Each structure stands twice: as structure tokens, then as C-alpha cells.
């Protein structure tokens, strides 16, 4: 399939998400679409797959202009997209999930479902899904396989994959990559959206880079990594490493902790958290990191064990007791779980003020607000509503609300969706806190971030937790294998 995008524009409110993007894709090609978070990659691909509509510009498929009003239109033309959160139905069985595809897309004659064709596609690509299983019980990787098989089954000619390697295991990634290469060999066109250079290097024959909504450049394989980085960020980026501040004073001691809910069981966790130390939690999403962090914050009741803070066992206490002791949880869903939409920055500071008072002291709160906005470099004003801030500024606001001094900070994916600059800045604040003997436990999907900022790392794999590993001198490949479920002691 030959695709040509001409002068695509898309706005969200005042954000110019795609700015005059023009792009041509040849059949049989695997095109890498690179860019950091928020560069407009997903928006462009959603336009091409009909999920959202462009504001202006043209889309030519095999030389003919097409108006893609809905995903149904795109499917009819043979364009299918695998979304970052697979668009499937967790409450159904796989069979049902496949059957719901409906006659209205008008492609092929599927009135009687041809299961054999599907099984053949599965087999060809090395997938192994049980059709009678429930979608909700699949891993993210398997759900992607299901979507991929479904799209091919529908006869899709152009396949768009949005960050498909997030949250899948190493072996699943291998299967995926070999399947994609095979499909390209069969003449399918593939667009591979990613912000990870290594993956694009391994898979793609050509790469284009988006930055702030603009198509900034394109390169043919073989790629020069530094060159691509420069394109993506506009300059060379290095992480700023800071001195580790870990001591040997035990701040929090976790003993024989069991955490269980109907999704996952984490058994027998033992470790000591030292004052000023940073512990990173590695693992695929949904391997138990969230439950673990929430249990340590008192938000989730562990089933047994001890959480010793000084001489006190915190087992069975609720999160408000933990907060009083200076143990805070910072959720990853900033707007959903951390900030209050419809409230101003100033109101947030009044709410997080721990001093007991009845009336609002506006003089004091003005001062506090101005002070924090400056100190945390938040691009907003006292009267700005929290939902109007950008993601990076929301994260800064969230951190600026935390009490000072805090003993333990439990951060769930603190830099998710942030650009490198914001990430660096946020870690510089966090490190500053460590100097003041605050201990940090954070989860992340980014191996570099883990090895770079954590003193020790706990690896999670479907509820299992490794011994703490020293991050200095840790073999990143071994870490990757452990995240994928290999190299674990029996």
C-alpha cells in the first residue's frame, strides 16, 4: 500500500499537535516514527487510522485522496492500528472479542467466522492464544498478539503499531519483531511508532522524526544513533548524575510481607530501606509494583507481615497514619489520583498545608503559593487550574505539595510521559530530598532511569520480587532478562 500524507494539521485546543506534516510511505516498508513523548506521533497515526479527524491536509492511499472519517473507513481501505492500550474487550472471551468485529466495516465476507484462517495466522506468526480464554486474563503482550492477528485476519495492508514494546516481555518482543519482519516480507506496509532508538535501529529500514508536532527529518538505515537523538531532542542530551546519598541507617524495614488481591499475590518480601537511599522497582507493568507501593503507603492492607518504622510496626494502619509519620505515596495518574481538577494551584497549597486551622489565611497562602511556584519552577499562576498545566508541570505541582521533610516517598512512575529535561529536573529535586535523608522508592518502565537514579533495584515478575540488586555495575541485559521472567533463582 502506498501512502502519502500532505500538509496535515491538527489542533487540540491551543496545542498544535501536528504542524504541516507531509510524509510518503512505500509498500513493504517498515517505517520507524520517532519522537519523544508529546511530539505528536500518536496523533498523526490516529488520524491515519481514522480514530480522530485531521483539521486540514490530505491523505492519499494508492494515489487516491481519501477522507477518513472513522476507523471503519480506514479498515475498509485496509488500514489497521494497534493502539498502546489495545482496543479490545477485557470482559469477553477471545472468541467473542473476535466475533464482535462486525459486518459494517464491509470488508470480506465474514458472516460465518473463519476460525481456521485465524489459527493459521497465529501459527505463521508464532502466537499461541487459546480462543476460549478470557481477554482480561491475557498479558499486555498477548493482547497485542490478539489485536495483531485480528487485524491481519481482516486483511489489513497497512499496520500501525503505537509503542508496541511498552509493557511486554523480552520473549514477546522477539516474537513480535520476527512477525513484523515476516509481514513486511509479504508486502505489508508497517509503521512502527516508538521513542526507543534501539528498536527502530533493529527493525526499520527508514525512520522519520517528529518534534513538537513538526516532521523534523528522515533517515535511511543504517542509522547513526547520535544523529537521531539530535533530531529528536534538538540537541545532545545527557543525564545529570548526582552523588548517591545513601546511608546505613535503616529507615523502613519490611519483613515477611505478603500482599494479595484477586489479581496478584506477592509473597514474603524482606528488605531494609536506608535513610537517603533510592530504590527502583523494575518490571513489566502490572507485575505488582503498584500493589507493593500502595501497601507500603498504607493504602492497601497487606495480608500478613511487618512494616517496621523505627520501633513501630505499621501493619494494619491506614494511609493517614502513614502520612502523619512522613510516608507519602505519589500516584502515576497525576490528574486522576493526585491533583484536583477545577481547583487552582493556590487551593492545592491550602489543602496540603498540614497546619490545623479553621479559616483560610489568604495572606499566608498567597505567599506559600508564590514561593513554591518559583522554587519548583512551575509554569502557571496562583489562579491557574491544575488541569490547565502541562504534564511536566503537573508532576512538579504534585511534588511541591509533599510535606517537607518527608521520611519516605513512594513514587509510581514519576517521570512517565515527561521529556528528558523535565525528568532531569524532577530527579534533581528528588536527589536534593535524599540529601536531607528522605528515602525514595520508585517504579519505572525505563531501564536507564532505574540504573541511573536508583541505588538498589528490586525486580518484579508476576508478583515475585527479587533480592535488592546494587545498581552500580548491574548488567542491564541481565536486568532485562529478569524483567522478562528469566534468570530467576528456582
Amino acid at each position, binding site marked *: 500500500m502506498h501512502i502519502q500524507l500532505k500538509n496535515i494539521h491538527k489542533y487540540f485546543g491551543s496545542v498544535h499537535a501536528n504542524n504541516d506534516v507531509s510524509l510518503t510511505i512505500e509498500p513493504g516498508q517498515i517505517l520507524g516514527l520517532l519522537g519523544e513523548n508529546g511530539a505528536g506521533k500518536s496523533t498523526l497515526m490516529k488520524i491515519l487510522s481514522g480514530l480522530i479527524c485531521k*483539521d486540514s491536509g490530505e491523505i492519499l492511499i494508492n494515489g487516491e485522496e481519501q477522507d477518513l472519517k472513522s476507523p471503519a473507513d480506514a479498515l475498509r481501505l485496509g488500514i489497521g492500528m494497534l493502539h498502546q492500550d489495545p482496543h479490545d474487550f477485557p470482559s469477553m472471551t477471545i472468541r467473542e472479542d473476535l466475533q464482535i468485529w462486525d459486518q459494517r466495516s464491509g470488508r470480506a465476507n465474514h458472516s460465518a467466522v473463519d476460525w481456521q484462517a485465524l489459527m493459521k495466522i497465529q501459527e505463521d506468526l508464532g502466537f499461541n492464544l487459546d480462543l476460549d480464554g478470557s481477554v482480561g486474563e491475557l498479558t499486555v503482550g498477548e493482547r497485542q498478539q490478539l489485536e495483531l492477528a485480528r487485524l491481519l485476519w481482516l486483511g489489513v495492508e497497512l499496520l500501525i503499531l503505537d509503542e508496541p514494546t511498552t509493557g511486554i516481555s523480552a520473549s514477546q518482543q522477539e516474537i513480535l519483531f520476527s512477525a513484523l519482519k515476516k509481514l513486511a516480507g509479504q508486502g505489508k506496509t508497517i509503521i512502527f511508532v516508538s521513542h526507543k532508538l534501539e528498536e527502530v535501529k533493529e527493525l526499520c529500514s527508514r525512520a522519520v522524526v517528529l518534534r513538537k508536532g513538526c516532521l523534523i527529518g528522515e533517515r535511511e538505515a543504517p542509522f547513526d544513533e547520535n544523529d537521531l537523538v539530535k533530531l529528536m531532542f534538538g540537541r545532545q542530551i545527557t543525564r545529570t548524575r548526582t552523588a548517591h546519598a545513601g546511608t546505613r541507617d535503616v529507615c523502613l524495614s519490611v519483613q515477611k510481607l505478603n500482599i494479595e488481591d484477586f489479581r496478584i499475590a506477592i509473597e514474603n518480601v524482606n528488605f531494609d530501606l536506608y535513610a537517603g537511599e533510592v530504590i527502583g522497582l523494575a518490571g513489566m507493568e502490572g507485575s505488582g509494583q503498584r500493589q507493593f507501593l500502595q501497601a507500603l503507603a498504607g493504602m492497601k492492607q497487606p495480608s500478613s507481615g511487618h512494616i517496621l518504622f523505627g520501633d513501630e510496626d505499621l501493619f494494619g494502619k491506614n494511609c493517614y497514619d502513614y502520612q502523619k509519620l512522613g510516608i507519602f505515596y505519589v*500516584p502515576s495518574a497525576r490528574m486522576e489520583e*493526585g491533583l484536583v481538577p477545577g*481547583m487552582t494551584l493556590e487551593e492545592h497549597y491550602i489543602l496540603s498545608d498540614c497546619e490545623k486551622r479553621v479559616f483560610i489565611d489568604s495572606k499566608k497562602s498567597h505567599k506559600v503559593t508564590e514561593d513554591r511556584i518559583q522554587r519548583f519552577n512551575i509554569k502557571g499562576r496562583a489562579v491557574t487550574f491544575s488541569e490547565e498545566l502541562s504534564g511536566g508541570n503537573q508532576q512538579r505541582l504534585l511534588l511541591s*505539595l509533599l510535606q517537607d521533610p518527608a521520611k519516605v516517598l513512594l513514587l509510581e512512575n514519576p517521570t512517565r510521559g515527561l521529556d528528558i529535561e523535565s525528568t532531569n529536573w524532577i530527579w534533581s529535586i528528588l536527589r536534593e530530598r535524599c540529601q536531607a535523608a528522605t528515602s525514595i522508592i520508585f517504579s519505572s518502565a525505563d531501564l536507564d532511569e532505574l540504573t541511573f537514579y536508583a541505588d538498589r533495584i528490586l525486580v518484579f515478575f508476576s508478583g515475585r520480587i527479587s533480592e535488592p540488586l546494587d545498581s552500580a555495575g548491574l548488567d542491564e541485559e541481565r536486568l532485562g532478562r529478569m524483567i522478562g521472567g528469566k534468570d530467576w533463582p528456582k
Partner: protein
Amino acid sequence: MSKNRAFINFLFRISGVIAALLFTALVLLIAKANPWEAFSNIFLGAVSTPIKIADSFVAWVPLILATCGLVITFTTGLWNIGIEGQISLGAIMTTWALRLLQDSGLPPVVIILAGFLAGIAGGIVWALLAGMLKFYGGVSEIFAGLGLNFIATALTLWLIFGPWKRAGVASMSGTEPFDMSIWLPTLTGYRLSIWSLILAVVSVLIVYFILKHTVVGLRLKAVGKNYKAAIQMGISPSKYMLLSFVLCGVFAGLTGAVQVLGVYHRLIPSISSGYGFLGLLVAMLVDYQIVWAVPMALLFAALNIGGIQLPIMMKIDSTLSGVMQSSLVLFFMLMDGVRKKILKKEEEQSNE
């Protein structure tokens, strides 16, 4: 630009009112009544004489009291549909206190105050029940509240026809009226009591102050807007939602007490007079802003009073006021939706 927008907003509000009036007129035509005659009868019925204006204020007091409570629960994100029952319980408790004390020889002021306190207690208990069902039982406050409303009605009926029945025969007209000495004193010649008017105004001020100038008010708001975030800020949502129920119970209880002490002077089967549900409508109409509730509640109260004329003058049912009130809120909401839709489209176009 912003002036222009304010004008557009105003136009949409007005068109909501017009749509509601047209709808009501249509309903009247279906009922083979003259809309113009009906509207003028309602209008005259509410304002033609000082007594009628005063009567509108008599209805305004319980309505604004109930709205005061509801603005608090709405701020906390709660649909306190159980307010009707909370008002009834307030009235029941007030009646109980008055029955207990009416022959005690205590000064009337003390008895009246005791009546108010008992009413508040009744409102709180019923509101807390709904709150606890929500937090400890997982029952949505909408269903818990509704169920409790029906139970409160049954309790009222049972008291009127059972233990508190009038000497002789029990009837729908309620319990034995209290002695005039323990009525809320009214202005001579009117049914309006200056004391209940003061109570209403003070209540509005208190609610305004709590929501605008206290930390507790801000916390209630935070819980309503995002209870998960509130947890991270050390605010316990269940505690503050229960508090919100209690505060609403106070105002609901006062409403019930005013109905007994200042309006009916006895317990009647429909003692809440539907002011709870009407308060919900008022609160929705003014987007939960207590300041705007003051005039809107007065409008609704006037519609109620004016509606009384309809069966007398035109032989049509007085529920027409209800039709007008709820269609007004409905069309306001619909117009608001249209307005937002148009604004969004405009914004999109201005980008191109």
C-alpha cells in the same frame, strides 16, 4: 470578546426560560386550558396582594433551608436524594419534643428552641444513616436516600394514625394542632414569621462562609472533585462525606422544624411538602452556587404559591407549578449543553 461571551451565555439562559414556558404552554393546550390565563393566574396568585407575597416568603424559607444543605452535599459530590426523609424526620422529632414539653410549663421560647434542636437531631440521624449505608454498606446514596424517604413517610403516617392520633378519629389532616403559644410568632395579619426569615438568611450566610472561607469547605470541595487526590492530601473522603451529610442533615432538620413550628403547627402526612426535591432542582438550576439559589428559590416558592390559584380559578391541577419548575431546570440544562457544544465548535474553527 469576553463581554460578547457573557452576552451569549445570557441569551442561552433566556432561551432556556422561553423554551420552558413554551413547553408549559403546550402542556396547558393539551389540557385544553388557556396558557395566558394560567400564567397570569400564577403570577397574580403570587404577587397580587401583600399577603400573597408574604406567603411566597413563607414557602421560600423551607426551600432555601433545604437548598443550603443540598449545596453542601453537592459540593462534596453527593446526590442527597434522601433529603425529603431528613426533613420529615426533623419534623417528627420537633413534634415529639413539642408534645413532650407543651404541658411542662416551661417558657414558650425554651420549648420552641428545644423543638428546633430536636429537629436538627432528627435530620442528622436520618442523613447519617444514608451516609453510613454508603460508606459501610456500599449502597449508593441515591438508593439509600430514596428508601429512607419512603420509610420516613411511613413513619409519619404511622405516628399520625397510631400513637399520636387525634382525639376521636385519626385523619389525613394530621395530629392535634399545638397551642398558639408555641407557634413561631408571625407578623400580625400574615403567616410569615420574621424569625424563620432570619433563620433562612443566617443559614445562607453560614453556608456561603463555610464554602468560601474555611479550610473545611475547601476540603469538602476537594473530596467532591477528586476523592482519590484528597486521600493523598491527607483528607479522608469518608470522614468528610459523612460530615457533609451531617451538615445537610442540620439544614434538613431545620426545614422540618420550621414546617412544624412556623407553618403547620402539627405533624401532617406530607410534612416535607416536597421542598427537598424542589431544593435539588434549585441547586441544579444555579449550578450549586448558594448566592444564586436565593432568588431562584424565591421564584420557585412564588410558583408554588401562585399554583394554588389554578384549581380555584381554572379547575386545573396545581401540579402545573411542578411541571414549570422541573421543565425550567431541564431546559436550562439542555441549553447549557447546546451552548457548550457551540463554544467547542467555535474554538475548533478559530484554530483553522
